[in-house]
């Protein structure tokens, strides 16, 4: 295996609606920032990979026009996934394993504000049996939340604890969209939105973008004093039909965590892509981090949840803490699909 590290991370401050700038204009400052942090120009970058979705922009191959944000001239080696940027990072990691390039730029973006996000997200569901009913993501997460409660694995107060802590953590994150300090008891006093979920258990709708630069081996050591080495990375998926899964556990996360080596050594920090509060509890259990003290110090997706961006942001937030020297070993997680259907787990480490 070729050692690969995150050597730079940049993100756009998350907002409810980016009404003025288009996607290219959103990305350009982020790309410029991440390149400057790595000390690289596009000519120095061996591979570029992005994550986004045509379903939000309403245009086929919309990522091609967004490449203008990179200024791809002379021609570059480039790829794209219709997925969260965390999976674009996975593709770039595989590309770096081939050894013919030593650096990669990974970026992702989305504007959810222009369209009805809940209707758009329902298009990823089974096209014959489920999508025609137009179920929204909040309702699907609520089905999962009730199963968790009725299995005796969590209470609505546990959900509120996640919601309260996440937004309190976000008070120290200048890029967060939602940050406040409200006690658990006050959250529990609020009415349900879709029983048993309250509004505070749900993520905000967010427009955002972020970018990461990867480098391999000695190139990473030359560019960054303390790279965040990717010691393990794996992703797994579960069946499409909700009825075929036990929604109170995440088998795919558990398998990915085992293969990424999460349990091989202590973890300083974890950033988990749990869009709904109950899902953090499921992920903690599956990752072996049930009682961990430092989960989502950024506020996580409950503080900002840009589609196709929130997963790569988790990797970036962990990597940044390792590059800063405030953490030595961290776990980052990204999810996709309804009720944690697909999950990616990465273990990042600094070396002294």
């Amino acid at each position: 295996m070729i050692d690969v590290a995150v050597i730079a991370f940049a993100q756009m401050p998350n907002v409810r609606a980016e009404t003025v700038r288009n996607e290219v204009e959103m990305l350009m400052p982020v790309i410029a920032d991440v390149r400057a942090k790595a000390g690289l120009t596009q000519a120095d970058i061996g591979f570029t990979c992005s994550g986004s979705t045509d379903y939000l922009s309403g245009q086929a191959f919309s990522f091609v026009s967004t490449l203008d944000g990179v200024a791809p001239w002379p021609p570059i080696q480039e790829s794209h996934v219709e997925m969260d940027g965390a999976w674009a990072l996975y593709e770039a990691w595989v590309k770096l394993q081939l050894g013919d390039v030593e650096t990669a730029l990974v970026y992702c973006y989305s504007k959810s504000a222009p369209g009805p996000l809940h209707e758009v997200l329902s298009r990823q569901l089974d096209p014959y049996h489920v999508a025609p009913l137009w179920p929204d993501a909040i309702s699907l997460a609520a089905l999962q939340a009730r199963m968790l409660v009725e299995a005796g694995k969590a209470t609505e107060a546990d959900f509120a604890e996640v919601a309260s802590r996440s937004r309190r953590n976000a008070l120290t994150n200048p890029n967060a969209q939602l940050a406040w300090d409200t006690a658990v008891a006050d959250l529990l006093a609020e009415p349900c939105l879709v029983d048993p979920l309250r509004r505070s258990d749900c993520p905000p709708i967010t427009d955002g973008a972020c970018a990461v630069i990867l480098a391999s081996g000695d190139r990473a050591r030359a560019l960054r004093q303390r790279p965040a080495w990717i010691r393990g990375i794996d992703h797994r998926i579960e069946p499409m039909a909700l009825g075929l899964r036990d929604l109170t556990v995440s088998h795919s996360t558990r398998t990915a965590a085992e293969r990424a080596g999460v349990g091989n050594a202590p973890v300083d920090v974890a950033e988990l892509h749990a869009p709904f509060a109950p899902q953090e509890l499921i992920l903690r259990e599956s990752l072996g981090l049930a009682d961990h003290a430092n989960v989502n110090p950024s506020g996580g997706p409950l503080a900002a949840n840009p589609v196709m961006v929130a997963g790569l942001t988790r990797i970036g937030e962990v990597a940044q803490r390792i590059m800063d020297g405030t953490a030595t070993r961290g776990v980052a997680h990204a999810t996709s699909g309804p009720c944690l259907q697909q999950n990616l787990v990465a273990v990042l480490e600094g070396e002294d």
Partner: protein
Amino acid sequence: MSDDPVVLSAPLIIEYPFSRTTGPVIGAFLTGLREKVLLGIKGSDGTVIVPPTEYDSFTGDDLTELVEVGPGGEVLTWAWVREPMAKHPLSHPFAWALVKPDGADVGFLQVVDAGSPEAMATGMRVRPRWAAEREGSIHDLACWEPDV
């Protein structure tokens, strides 16, 4: 050539101009709905899966043994929608639920028209409400109602 400027125009219609055949398994399920019959399929381990799938999600085996299930069923979990969204199947408050038809081993996502959340409970019995006009789609099964 006329001196008048010619402005060309053409309609732009965004569409997916193709149709899919539903095949021997999904097609059989949808045809069954038209006849008010619910079909499942036996998985590799004998588990009865509804709606039927063409392959076993865990072993990858081809599945072919269709079995009739229902008509009654049981609620495995539910979520109460206080304010339905524009495209939801019902315009008044309702429950999404995973409904397990009698004779099946798994549930599938359906709507229960129960009136109020107090009328909902995990484990409750429900019966299907069929659409008056059925054409072989999931909408033929309009929703489920409490079987009391």
